[in-house]
Structure formats: C-alpha cells, structure tokens
C-alpha cells in the first residue's frame, strides 16, 4: 500500500493516514457523470483523494457547498466563481434523485408512509441508511426535519406521516 501511495506522489497528504489509499482501479476510471463543470471537478477534486466517493454522494446545493467550502479550507485551489461552477455541477448531476447508484434492496413493513419513504427518502441515499438501525423514538422527528432542511422534497403533513411511520416501526 505504501508503495502505491508513493507511486502516485500522494504522500504529501495521505502517507501518514494508512486508512484510505485509492487503489489503481479506483483511480483509473472516471466515476463522474458528464456535464458542464465536469472537467473542473475532475481536476480540482482529484488532487488529494479519488473521486469515487463524491460520485456516490447525492446532496442538494447547500450540502455540496458545505463540502466544497471545507475542501477549500483543506487546500483545494478553487476561486470563488469556480466554486459556483463546481457546486452547480454537483447539485445538478449528483443532486437528489440524479443518476442514483444501485442500492441493496430493503423491505419496509406495510403501513401509511411506506411508499412515501421509498420514494422521497431514497433521493440522496439508500433506504438502508434510513432504517438500518433502530433509533430513539424522539430522534425520528428531528432527523426528518433535518432531511427537509437538507432539501428532502416533503410537505409538513408528509413529514409527519413519515416520522410517525419510522417511530412506530424503527423506534426504540
């Protein structure tokens, strides 16, 4: 693994963190969808780590902006106008519901809210993320409100249906 890091001259940032080293295969293929701004992202976001994870994240523009701002503080070389291009590209091509990667099927128990969740709560991540673990009953309304703030397209009534369903079926 060390040899690989060195071969890719990545040592400046990652040599001391054996945790994540992109494999050759991961580095080789371009995982990003085509679109305006692709080339900028491919260059400016591949200096320190591979692009594979970015391609697996779905988020709204505010979420993407937060990531990109964080990367600028870490040393990504992007000017202000370029940040706008990058965020626009990411939100458009890797926004809610866009180019969704295949996900592990998850069977939800029947009940009001089931279809809503299967439809709206899979736009940015898979269902496994939602229901893999039981949570405190009082945590669910907070999480759903959080998701709405992140950009989940649900009305206030739909949100209530969703957290009631989750509290009943996945509350602890």
């Amino acid at each position, binding site marked *: 693994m060390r040899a690989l890091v060195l071969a890719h001259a990545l040592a400046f940032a990652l040599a001391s963190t054996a*945790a994540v080293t992109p494999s050759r295969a991961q580095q080789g293929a371009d995982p990003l969808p085509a679109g305006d701004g692709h080339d900028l992202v491919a260059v400016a976001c591949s200096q320190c*780590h591979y692009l594979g994870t970015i391609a697996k994240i779905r988020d709204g523009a505010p979420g993407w902006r937060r*990531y990109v701002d964080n990367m600028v503080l870490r040393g990504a070389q992007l000017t*202000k106008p370029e*940040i706008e291009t990058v965020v626009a590209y990411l939100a458009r091509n890797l926004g809610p519901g866009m180019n969704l990667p295949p996900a592990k099927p998850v069977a939800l128990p029947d009940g009001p809210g089931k279809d809503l969740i299967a439809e709206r709560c899979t736009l940015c991540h898979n269902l496994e993320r939602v229901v893999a673990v039981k949570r405190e009953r009082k945590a669910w309304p907070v999480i759903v409100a959080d998701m709405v703030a992140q950009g989940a397209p649900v009305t206030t009534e739909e949100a209530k249906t969703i957290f009631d369903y989750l509290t009943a079926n996945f509350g602890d």
Partner: protein
Amino acid sequence: MKELIKQYLDRGLSRRRLVSGLSAFGLSTVAAKAVAQNLAPLGQGIGSGNAATASTAIRTIEGNGGKLFVEQLKAAGVEYIFFNPSTGDHPIFDALVDVPEIKLIKGVQEGAVVAMADGYARASGRTGVVIVANIGLPNAMTQMVNTWKDQIPLLVAVASVDQDALGRDQWQETDHHELMTEPITKWFWQAQSTEAIAETTRRGLKFASTPPCGPVFLSLPTNTLAQHAKTQIWDGSKFNVPMRIRPDKADVEKAARLLIEAKNPLLSIGDEITWCRADKELLELAELLGAPVAGEMSNLGYWSKPFPTRHPLFIGTLLRTMRFPGKPDVLLNLGNRWGEIAAPGTTLISIRLDPTSLARQAPVDLAMVADLKLAIADLTAAIRSMATASRLADIAEQRAARTRAYSAQMAELREAIGRGLADSTPISMERLGIELEKHLDRDTCYVADVDSGKTMDPLMAFGGDDKQYFGTGPNVLGWGMAAGFGVKLARPDVPVVSVVGDGSFLFSGPQPLWSMARYKAPVTVIVLNNHSYNNERNRIWNGAGRQFEAARDMTCYNGNPDVDFAKTADAFGVEGETVKEAAALADTFARARAAMVEGRPYLLDIHIKREGLGAVSQWYPPYSLAQQRTRKV
C-alpha cells in the same frame, strides 16, 4: 616556547615538564599551569591523567555509574531530565541531589514524559533527555514515533536488568529489550561497564543531535549504574561539534541560474527549514525571487509552518499538480520531505538536510545535502551576484504580481467561508479558528494535536511575526498537552496554547495535566471536543465502503460516555470550563488569560460541531455487558 607546546601536544612531553619549561621562558608558575590547562583538552593523552584532572573541558572523575551519567550530561549542558523513576535508576537521582544545574521534570506516564521532552527539543533546538523505567519503555515508544519521524533529538535511557542476571528470565526481563527500539531510533546501545557509561552517553547525545536528528536509546544495566569507576567527562563542545554542511558552490550557482531564468518557478518548503532556523533566509529568498511558496497549510505530514501564512507569496498546500501557478518549470524543494514532485517539463532542485529521504520518492535533477540556513543564504548570495539588483527586482515584480492577486483572492475567500459558518451550535471549527485568531497574542506558540482541527488552521496566521506552529508529522496522538508543557519550558516568556482533540486527549489521558499543575505551567489547553474521531471517520467513510453505504459508524463516535474534560482537569488541580456556545468564547478566553497571568494552567473543553460524512450520526454498535449476566453480580 612554540616548540615546547608542540612537543606537549604531540604527547612527547609530560605536563610537569611543560610547566617547568614554560617557567624557564619567564612565565610565572600560575601562568604556566594555566597554559598547560588550556592546552589539555587537545594534548592530554590517556597517560597524562594529571592534565585531564586539571582541565575544565575534559576531566577524569570517579563515582558510580549514576554520577558519571549525570556529570556527562551536565558537562554537555543538559538543563532538564524528563523522567519517571524505577528502582534501578536510583544512582542517577542520588547524584542529582548534588547537581542543581539539572532540573528534574516528572511525568506520570512515559508517553507524556517523551512528549514533554520532544516539545522542549522542538522549541529549544536542544536534545531532550528522558529517563523512564525499563518496563515503561513501550509506553514511551508510542510518542518516540513522533520524535523519530520528525527527526527531533532525544536521548532516552532506562536502567535495565543487572548484567549478571541477563538471560535468566528474571521477572521484569525481556531478552535484548533494546532491540525493540530499533526501527524508531538512530542508534541503541547497552552500556557494557560503569566505565563506559560516560562515553556511551556522549555518543548517544552526539548521534541524537547530528542531523538528521532523532531519538537514541541507552540501556544502562543496574549494576553499571551502581558500581564505581574512574572515567573521563568531556564538555559538550568537545564532541557535539558543528555539523552544519554548506552545499557545493558549483551546485548552488547552477540552482541560482535556473531560478533566475525560470519562467514559472515554485518553492516547496518543509520542516527542515524550521529545524535549521532558516525562516528569515527563506523569506529573503522568496521575496528576492518573487516566487510563490507552497507547503503546509492544513494537511498531515508536517510539524511546523516555516513561512508566514499571511504573506502574499504563500499559496498554501503543496499539491500534486498546482492549478495555481500552473506547472512550474523549476521546482525548488527546500527541506520538504514530501516536496519532491517530478513532472516532465519541470526541473526539480531539492536541498535537504536529510540525505536518506532526498531523491527517494521522485527523480531529482539537482540534489544537495545541506543545512538549510546556510544553503538558502548561499543561494541568495549567488543569485544576487549573477544579476543586477534592478534586473532582479524586475523579475521578482513580474512574478509576484500574479501570486499576490491569487493569494489575496484566496485569503478573502477563506475568510468569507469562515464567516459563513460562524454561527452554529455546537460551535463550528471555523468559528473557533476566527476567535483564536482574534484572542491569541501574535507571539503565541500554538501546539496542535488534533486531526480535523486542521481545517481551522487556514483561518489563522502562523509563521514570521505571527504565531509559531508546532504539530507532529505522523500524528501519533496523545502528544499535544505534554508537548505544550515542553514548549513552555523552552520558551517561558511567550504564551503557549495546546489544542487537542477529544480523541487526542484520551490517548494521553489527563496525565500531562499532572506535570502542568506540579510545575505551575501557564499553558492554555483547548480540548476541541466533537465527541468523535471525526476526521478518522471522514477518511474511513471517504473510502465509500459498507460503513458509508449502511450509514453505520462502527468505530468513531465518542459521545457516550460524554467525557467531561473540565471535571477531569479539576481532579488534577487544573481549573477548567466547558464551552457550548460561540457567544461565550470571548469571556472564556479572558478567564484563560487571567490564569496565565497568575501562572497556572487552564483548560477549555469546547464542544465543537462534527463535520463531514456521517457527522450527524450518534449511533454506535450497542452492547451491554450488564445485560449479558445471568446473575446480578
């Protein structure tokens, strides 16, 4: 008279005959003896014991091994011994009763002892001396990895098993225990006799402080410490001789020419500049060339920031390919282990203190092994000698204009990002960075042992007349509080702040606070408490494996139990407080400052927002031992 002295130096003449000979030339006996004494360090041979006794630089003394060890350290100018005692090393501490020149600094866990000595060595440029128990050596070794990788001089000694008992599987004996230090020391040795202790100590000090520096390990068998012998003690000046290497003149001229003619030069800088105290020379060279400077900004792998981060020529983190200023035609790497980046069309010049990692990762076109301070000064002089001042000023101005515009734009952008994230609860890392920049004095030594805290570094000013940054390259956590203590010891007259993560704090445990309290060290400790191994999780999840897919943070959430670090400090007699709101920070810093004025440590447990992938998650794999029981016992 000259001839007499020559004969004496060549050992053809005894000291007594030298003195009488000098008297014959009309010198008083006192003056003749003084001359003989001054000559002694050079001339005394093993046979001329008297000369050695009379000499101040080289003396023969008698005592047990502990005394010989201490006397040799004293003669080398050692000011502090960082320690945790064992039974076998008592002759050393017995000897110290009568040697007030060396101060004893106690730590209550060996990792803390090493990190204190390491911080002291980084800040003072001197060798840290450590004595710990034989069986505590593995505790010490964790922190020795930082010392080793960052090439900091350290002498670590233990009292080991009696030589007669070696190999008998005694209760605390492990065979050839010194071997375990092999991969993280420059040299390790077991003293073979009492007589050899002083010489072994000299050699250890010498190897530790010969660049590239590093830790050295000495094993001193208990019988060698307890038994008596007569041996020489040498002044430090006689064996810690200057080893600062000047680069080859022709190579320097070649580099100077390349740098003058370059269209798009780039300087890459690293920690060896800090170690060589070459920051002023670097600034002068960068300004003379008008070349952009890239190095450490917020990434791992470095322990210092040798160039002012607010300087218009500083462009931040050195990346594999730099979008600004574009591909350099000449890349000048100065003392940066990670700075040799080869590319077609780039001429790579690398000047390094450490020959072992020079041209190790990438092919280098022009390589020089040298002390960075001397090398940069020579390079600057060579450049000045090759072109008129006005031509150089023109070249620098053309190059610098573009860089100034870029760095100003990026500084503004970073500040805007920081401001945009300033109002949150828990407090954002960025807000804390902004507040620290506002409240810390410019001459603060900022000691950082925190992983994700690196995103706040770019919102602060380091280097030059601004805060001096101390971290570790390998990021072996549990270093920061103890190292902060060591920095304060080396620099009592500047403010010292230690910033550690909640994870980092728990790696050292609170033990460094014990030394801070005992020695009344006015150090402000800031625990950047995000209840998580935050950046560890970011790296793990950034690999997009099963934890990421299933959103299950199997390893990094720390919030349960929710450790109260201020309460922990209280147990050690260190005042502290918990801060949960950004609005409370200003008053908090004022109270910390008051404690510093009073001359005592102060701890702030600041609750910080987790950031990045999986940051929202508070889940961890549940398991209750209580529930496993079939009996309520």
